[in-house]
C-alpha cells in the first residue's frame, strides 16, 4: 500500500469516524442518563440528510441545509421525548429499544412518502483539494473532522464546566439522587434528547454530500454506531470519540486491504475489545444499573 493511498484512507476513516461520533454521542448520553436505547436518533440522522438535500436545492447552500437539518433533528427528538419517552421511562431498557425501532421504521416510511425511494445527491459545498504530503485531500472531509472535534470540545466543556452538565454527569451515576437535590430531572432528559437530536441531524447533514441520501441510510449506519457506543464504553464521551475514530479507521483501512473486511473487521475489533474490557475502552464500572 503506497503512502498516498494510505493517507487518503486515513482521512476517509477519520471523516467517517467523525460522522459515527456525532451519532454515537447522543445515543451514549441518552443511555447513560435515561437508560434508554434511542434508535430513533438514526431517523433524525436521515431527516438531517434529507432536509440538507431539500434546503440546498431551494436555497443553494448546503451549509444552510445542514443548519436546517440540525434544527429539524432537535425538534423531532424533542417531540419524541415529550410524547413517547415520557411514557416509557419506567419500563425496561429493551422496551425503549423496541419502541424506538418502531419509530425509526415508521419514520423511514414517512421519509419514503415525502422524498420517494430514489437516492438523492447533495453537492459537496467545497470542492477544494488540499495537498498533504503529496496526497490530494478533499477539504470537505477535513471540515467534517474539524466539526466533530469541535463538537467533542463543546460537549466536554458543557459536561465539565456548566452546572447542568455536572447535573447530567451526576445523573449518569444516579438519577434519583439528582432528583433528591431538587433538580427536575425530566428537564435534564429533555435537554439531553435535544442535544442528541441536533447532533444526529448534524451528522446526517454533514454526511449527505459524501453519500447518496436514501430512505434507509439510518439503518445502514446503525450497526457501526452501536459498535462505537459499545467499544467506547457507555456514557463516556472520550471513549466515544476514540472508538468512533477507531471504527472509522478499521472500516476505511480494512477495505483498502481487502474489501469485505470493511464490513467484518469492526465486529472482530469489538469482540476483541469486549473480551479484554467488558465495559468498553472508557466504560465506567459505575454504570451498574
Amino acid at each position: 500500500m503506497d503512502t498516498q493511498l494510505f493517507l487518503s484512507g486515513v482521512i476517509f476513516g477519520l471523516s467517517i469516524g467523525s460522522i459515527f461520533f456525532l451519532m454515537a454521542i447522543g445515543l451514549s448520553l441518552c443511555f447513560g442518563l435515561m437508560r434508554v436505547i434511542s434508535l430513533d436518533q438514526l431517523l433524525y440522522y436521515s431527516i438531517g440528510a434529507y432536509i440538507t438535500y431539500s434546503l440546498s436545492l431551494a436555497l443553494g447552500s448546503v451549509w444552510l441545509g445542514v443548519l436546517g437539518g440540525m434544527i429539524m433533528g432537535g425538534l423531532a427528538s424533542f417531540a419524541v421525548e415529550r410524547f413517547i419517552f415520557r411514557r416509557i421511562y419506567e419500563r425496561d431498557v429493551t422496551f425503549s429499544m423496541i419502541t424506538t425501532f418502531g419509530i425509526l421504521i415508521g419514520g423511514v416510511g414517512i421519509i419514503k412518502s415525502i422524498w420517494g425511494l430514489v437516492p438523492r445527491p447533495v453537492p459537496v459545498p467545497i470542492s477544494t483539494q488540499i495537498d498533504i504530503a503529496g496526497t490530494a485531500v478533499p477539504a470537505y472531509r477535513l471540515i467534517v473532522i474539524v466539526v466533530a472535534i469541535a463538537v467533542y470540545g463543546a460537549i466536554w466543556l458543557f459536561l465539565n464546566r456548566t452546572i447542568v452538565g455536572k447535573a447530567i454527569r451526576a445523573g449518569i451515576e444516579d438519577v434519583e439522587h439528582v432528583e433528591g437535590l431538587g433538580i427536575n430531572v425530566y428537564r435534564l432528559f429533555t435537554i439531553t434528547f435535544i442535544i442528541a437530536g441536533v447532533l444526529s441531524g448534524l451528522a446526517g447533514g454533514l454526511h449527505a454530500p459524501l453519500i447518496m441520501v436514501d430512505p434507509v441510510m439510518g439503518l445502514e449506519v446503525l450497526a457501526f454506531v452501536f459498535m462505537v457506543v459499545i467499544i467506547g464504553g457507555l456514557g463516556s464521551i472520550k471513549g466515544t470519540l476514540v472508538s468512533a475514530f477507531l471504527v472509522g479507521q478499521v472500516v476505511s483501512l480494512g477495505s483498502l486491504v481487502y474489501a469485505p473486511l470493511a464490513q467484518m473487521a469492526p465486529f472482530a475489533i469489538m469482540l476483541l475489545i469486549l473480551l479484554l474490557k467488558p465495559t468498553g475502552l472508557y466504560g465506567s464500572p459505575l454504570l451498574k444499573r
Partner: protein
Amino acid sequence: MSADSDAAIVRAENVTKRFGALTAVDQVSYSLRRNEVAGIFGSNGAGKTTFFNLLTGYYVPEEGSIWYKGEDITRRPIQQRVAMGMMRTFQLTSTFDNLSVVDNLVLAFYRAHRSVSLWRMLFSTCRAHRNEPRVLAALETFDLGDQRDKEVRHLSLGEKRRLEIAMSMLAEPEVLLLDEPLAGLADSEIKSVLEVLGRQVGKQTIVIVEHKVSAVKEFVQRLLVMHEGRVIAEGGYDECMQHPEVRRSYWQIDARQRGDEQ
C-alpha cells in the same frame, strides 16, 4: 384535627405500602412538629426506610395520605418535595462519585439558593460558585477542606457521609430526613456529625432513622418505634424503652447494644 395539622409540618395519615404479599408499612400515622428532632427506630425490616421513602416521595403509598404544611403531597414527585423544603440522605450515600467534593456541594448549593431553572444552570459554571461563602463554610464545618478537589470516589465512607450531610444542610431544608446517618462511622466521626447536627436543633425539623438508638438518645426529643411495618410506641426515649411491646420486640437488640457499649 385542624389544630393538630397547624402544628405538624409533616403528617402521614394511615399510610400503607405493600410489596407483593409483604406489607412493609402498615397503617402508619405520624406527625412531625416544626423544629423538633425526631427519631424513627426499629430493627431491620421494621419498615423505617420504606416509611422514609413514602414521606420523601420515592414510593407512593397504596393507602393513606401524606401532608406537608397542610398540603396533600401524597403524589407529588421527589423534586417538588425538595423544592417545598424536605430533603433526605440515604443509607448508601447519595454523593456523586465522578464529581469533586466541591462540585457536589456546588450542585446542592446552586439548586437551593441560586436558581431552579435549568436554563440558568446552562449558563452558569461550577467554578463561579466554588468560593461561595456557604460552600466554603460547609467544607470547613464538615472538615472536608483538604478533600475539596478530590473526586468523591476516593473518599472514605465517613467522608462521603459527612459530604452527604453537608450537601443536605447546605440546601437548608425546613425538614431534614437522615437515613442512618451514623452507620459505618467511627465513634469520633459520630461525635462530629452529631455536633454539627446539634447546632441545627431548633432551626430545622430533623428526623433520624437509626438502628443504634443509643447513639442518638441524647439528641432526639421524640421517638417512633416501628416493628414489622407498624408503630408500636411513640414518645420520649425512656418512655418508649419502657414500653412492654418495645421491650418484647427489642430485648435482643438492646442486649446486643449493651454489649457494644461495654
